[in-house]
């Protein structure tokens, strides 16, 4: 929880294109590994990047390459070639990727951009 309104803690939630950033109380202790870098996601057909500018530590779920959590060690900014920048306050966050339903395959799939 990173924002405070009149003493009440409010969860930080922000959408940045096909990513959603949600504050969490802590990074999970198990099931994640640290990842070097500052890029949360790269578009396959455009090579555009959702990148954090500031001191961050990123984490991925074990066995996966995609960043699932990150810790902003200071106030940071989430940037992208097309989306407007979003200010991310110091804190711990979960990264959620946009999904969609495929009626052709009767399956829920992560959006590919």
């Amino acid at each position, binding site marked *: 929880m990173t924002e405070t309104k009149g003493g009440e803690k409010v969860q930080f939630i922000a959408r940045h294109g096909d990513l959603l950033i949600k504050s969490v109380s802590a990074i999970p202790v198990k099931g994640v590994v640290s990842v070097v*870098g500052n890029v949360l996601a*790269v578009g396959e*057909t455009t090579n555009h990047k959702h990148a954090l500018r500031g001191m961050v530590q990123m984490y991925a779920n074990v066995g996966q390459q995609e960043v699932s959590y990150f810790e902003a060690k200071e106030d940071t900014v989430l940037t992208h070639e097309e989306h407007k920048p979003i200010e991310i306050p110091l804190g711990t966050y979960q990264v959620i990727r946009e*999904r*969609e*339903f495929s009626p*052709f395959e009767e399956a*829920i799939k992560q959006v590919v951009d």
Partner: protein
Amino acid sequence: MHRKMSNEAKYIEVAFNNHKTSKTCTEDKILPHLKKIYKKLSLREPKIVIANSFEHQEKIIKATANKGKNLTEEIRDHIRDGFRERKEKLEGSYPFEEITKFMENVKITRMLMNNNPEEFLRTRGGFGVSSESWIVWSDSLNLNTGMHKLLKDLYLLGIFDIAFYENYAFICPPPNPILKDEQDRYHSLDKPAIGWNDGTGLFYIRGVNFPRELWERVSHRKLSVKELLKLENIEQRFIALDIYGAEKLLSECKAQLIDKSERGNTLYEICELLKDRFGTSRNVKLLKYNCPSTARVYVSFVPDEIQTADEGMAWKFRLSKTEYDKLKTEA
């Protein structure tokens, strides 16, 4: 310290401009540079083969007998040695953020180069499929000596890619023309946006890359509604939808409006798009929504149980409707 993308653009432009002004990569210009590189590898000068295009270069390489060993690894070893030395000097004395950026570039480029060189070429827009990224880094890190300098000078003659073998150097000239839209994105609806004289190239619409066959169908509006909605990549789907027209598509598949929210999300039901295994029409729900930064219109299917447009958007990001109502920061 230079920023990576601006450097990348700079080198690509140098290569392209050289080509446009007829400073093409002729054998007599290339040979002195190649001699120095091969001497550093303790080899004799190679024969030079200049291809017509990137695809042509690949074909010639496959067809050439007695080309000898591929030297990519040897050359990379020289590059790595230079980087290792420089990185060791940087560590401890350089800002953490710069080291992080450097490592991120290394990671992304390695991943693309090793796993999918074609994808690397497409997404990076070219300029030395095996070498473009280190040119940028070497410049950023002031690595302007040894093999780094020799290779950089060679590429800047106006070369798109080189495949180094013991007995041959296979060279691909820069593409021409390079077509872009008013926002400086690779773009063409009637030929490759990055093309060579033999008609081959890379196909883009407003900066989004397409395989040739799909590009033809999208740019000539030959994609059916079902094919369009089935496109896996959402950026390709957006481009196809934009060319086709969102309202036309909705009208053609007889979409029924279910709900429209104040946030601009719209939920439709489509009855005749799909049939189940018994041949009966199956109703599906389609969400139309905008990107808050670019105002682009996207469409995405949502599960049958979704009742409202905002509920559909909440589902897409694994939020409850209450959480979605609280989501105010969107870009």
